[in-house]
């Protein structure tokens, strides 16, 4: 391997890693606030890419149907649980958030396919279509078992991923998509050609991580999320509703995953099931950060990207074997480094 090739591989790896980093940060966000290891994040990223491709082709994306189905389910569940607890007067509010808002977004998207909106609008639409999915899934799937063990939540999350992959095939079909590059610029740096898309990916990752940092440190909502992450009971006593904090975390996380999906679509062909590997690799990065640290997760994810890039150069067939085998030493290191309370699994 010459230094040229090494440089190209490194840049390639950093770009892939930056995409994983966005998803990894979202994973950490959701894990800390809700204790759910949200494996389907990668699927959300892949679905965004597929949605954007459908919008580009002036087709109504399958995501729309998915959102409608989920919104109806979530509304039924929410209204049902309100009725059981005798709080039906809150039903209009629930209808607004769980039914009207998501349906309005879907309506916009439907209208858009009739017209020929510019790229920026299509990007916005794709993101808007994708963001309701995880909060709705949270309401349907995770809220009823919010008090369960991390393991139960993890098991459910893995099952949810498989459901989403099935739905993805149903809504998007088996064809892979590759969207137009967002920019055709490129520049040369120290003799290595760097494409504008690569730079865009890295910049987007930096900007979004920065925004998240500002959000957490300088807004009350951000602080309430951090409080929930540190101590659910304590923050509840302070008047913060964990369920609401969870919804915000899912919204933000989906946004990050959506952005990563948009960024990856011009670089890699995305299929309905591409999300699993994106999600898992981001997750490996998140574990490097101990599932609690955002910079740690970002650094870990970039590390995974670089590793993958070099591994695929050495043996493209075995690159995933290499990446996942490497997870085990990382897990051991994290497990030794973190303090555990005994009684993690009381009967």
């Amino acid at each position, binding site marked *: 391997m010459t230094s040229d090739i090494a440089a190209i591989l490194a840049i390639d790896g950093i770009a892939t890693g930056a995409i994983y980093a966005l998803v990894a940060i979202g994973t950490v966000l959701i894990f800390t606030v809700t204790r759910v290891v949200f494996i389907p994040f990668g699927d959300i990223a892949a679905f965004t890419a597929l949605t954007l491709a459908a919008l580009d082709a002036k087709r109504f994306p399958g995501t729309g149907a998915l959102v409608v189905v989920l919104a109806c389910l979530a509304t039924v569940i929410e209204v049902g649980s309100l009725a059981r607890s005798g709080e039906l007067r809150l039903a209009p509010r629930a209808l607004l958030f769980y039914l009207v808002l998501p349906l309005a977004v879907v309506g916009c998207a439907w209208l858009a396919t009739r017209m020929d909106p510019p790229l920026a609008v299509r990007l916005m639409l794709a993101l808007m279509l994708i963001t309701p999915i995880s909060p709705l899934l949270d309401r349907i799937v995770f809220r009823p078992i919010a008090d369960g063990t*991390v393991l139960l939540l993890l098991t459910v999350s*893995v099952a949810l991923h498989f459901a989403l992959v099935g739905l993805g095939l149903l809504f998007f079909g088996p064809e892979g998509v590759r969207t137009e590059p967002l920019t055709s610029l490129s520049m040369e740096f120290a003799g290595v050609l760097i494409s504008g898309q690569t730079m865009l990916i890295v910049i987007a990752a930096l900007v979004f991580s920065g925004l998240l940092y500002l959000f957490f440190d300088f807004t009350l909502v951000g602080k309430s999320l951090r409080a929930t992450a540190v101590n659910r009971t304590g923050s509840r006593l302070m008047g913060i509703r964990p369920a609401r904090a969870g919804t915000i975390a899912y919204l933000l996380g989906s946004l990050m995953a959506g952005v990563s999906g948009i960024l990856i679509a011009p670089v890699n062909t995305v299929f309905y099931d591409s999300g699993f590997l994106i999600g898992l690799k981001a997750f490996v990065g998140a574990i490097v950060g101990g599932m609690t640290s955002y910079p740690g997760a970002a650094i870990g994810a970039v590390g995974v990207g670089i590793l993958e890039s070099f591994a695929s150069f050495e043996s493209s067939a075995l690159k*995933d074997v290499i990446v996942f085998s490497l997870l085990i030493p990382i897990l051991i290191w994290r497990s030794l480094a973190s303090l555990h309370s005994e009684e993690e699994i009381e009967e």
Partner: protein
Amino acid sequence: MTRLHVQIAAAAAVLGLAVAPLVLSPFSITLMNYIGIYSLVAIGLALLTGVGGIVSFGQAAFVGVAAYATAWVSALNGHSPWLGLLFGVALTCGVATVLGLVTLRLQGHFLSLSTVAWGLAIGFLFGNVDGLGRFNGISSIPPISFGSLALVSSAQIYFLIWGIVAGVLFLGYNLLDSRLGRAMRALRGGNTLVESLGINAFSIKLATFVIAAFLASLSGWLYAHMSRFISPGPFDAGMGIEYLMMSMVGGAGSLLGGVVGAAIVTLLKNSVQDYLPLIAKGASGQLEIVAFSALFILFLQWARQGIVPFLARYLPKLKRERPAPAPPLPRRSQPKPGELLLKVDGAERRFGGLVAVNNVSFEVRAGEILAVIGPNGAGKSTMFNCLTGALRVNKGEIVFAGRPITRDAQSRIAKAGIARTFQHVKLRPRMSLLENVMLGTYGRTGAGLFAGAFRLNRREEASARHEALLQLERVGLGEKPFELAGNLPLGNQRILEIARALAADPTLLVLDEPAAGLRRQEKLRLAELLRSLRADHLTILIVEHDMEFVMSLVDRIVVLDFGSKLCEGAPAAIRNDARVQEAYLGGVA
């Protein structure tokens, strides 16, 4: 319901399975074969996940290792499938041992995540290794044959599959009801208790893990020679989830649940394949996994405990006979009263800058009750943890019965003859009183895996059972030995912990705040019990802050304050010591 009823039911089930091929259609027999093959993996998972508390997403990889191993031996190299069985089992158990050695020290969800990792890594390997047919798989795998009888048709291999399943269930239930099985069942709920009983939690976990992998390898061997063709698909991550689902649906922790779960999931999947096309034409393949995952999620939301435990509640309770008298278990040689038993010399323990225990020295003599007391934050619990090996001292030495134990692990200290109880009661609420106390006899018994599975341990078991009953009677809980420990009130739970400690035949009994949270009557009963134990020449060390409880009971008191020893002496002297009064009451005017 008695044991005989259970045996009759088991015999009827075996008979039913034996005649089933006569009445079932060939398709149903094939379905039954798949159920049997999946059952083996699910039974392993029931042991691993339900009993041992280790959630594994990667069992499909073990099935695959064995299937590919036997296919390589038989189809690619032309040897007998029986050699394939040997090779497959050995390879799978070898892989499991290595993975287990590396990952089983991980905690909680880290461990489960590691199973996802190696499950995926091994799964990817099958499709990407040259010489294993890549994604085309390996075809023309020969059938299993007994002499000249080749098991070609599904009705033939049926008997082999279900024979193995029945055997595994029989051995599995035997194992769970043995010394090692109880240790496995105690794993769930944390290592501290397990280690304090002299059980090496890690090796028990490893054994459980390898047993589960062994069952998966049997399944893989049967699968390869039944379908005669293998490809990476059936061993991928999705199948790993499906196995987990089978064991959870059946009821994690119940071996029979593994079979029931495998049956339900397989039949359900089959009917989903049948009926989905009626609902959604042309999309059945995609919807299958969706419907399936949705059902699983609903199941986890509404019926986490699984079907078999749910149904078992409606069965009449198994009547069990009180353990019959049996030859006693071997006893330790007890020290002579007054002999030096435990010596703590200059113990020091720091947490960062905080010195929790500072140069503390004291001695415990055989036959006495010594109390370590002190106000909150005095370092009592830290001292206690250093004594029992839960923490290491930074400086100083602890000598027990003439042997330094300063650097020993918890389980070794327990084996040396120190038995403990916990400030926050640690019992296994879903095990009976008798079984909880039998856990204490672990160090005094020796039956291993095979002795447990094949019931070669009957004499020892009878002795252990009788010993446990004796200890229950000794502490006054002998009336309902088959009651579940979780049903006892707190006071009795503490007493039960003492019975468990006594079953280890300790030379020193250490009690961590035994009176905490007890009502007055319960405290009096506890004090009464401890006095009777002293009358039997047992040495007791109590860490406690309830002065009243301590004063009337113990022979000597060591007072700690801010990590250092304040003074030491008889209760009356301590009561009148000005320094103690100041420490407790904040200075006497």
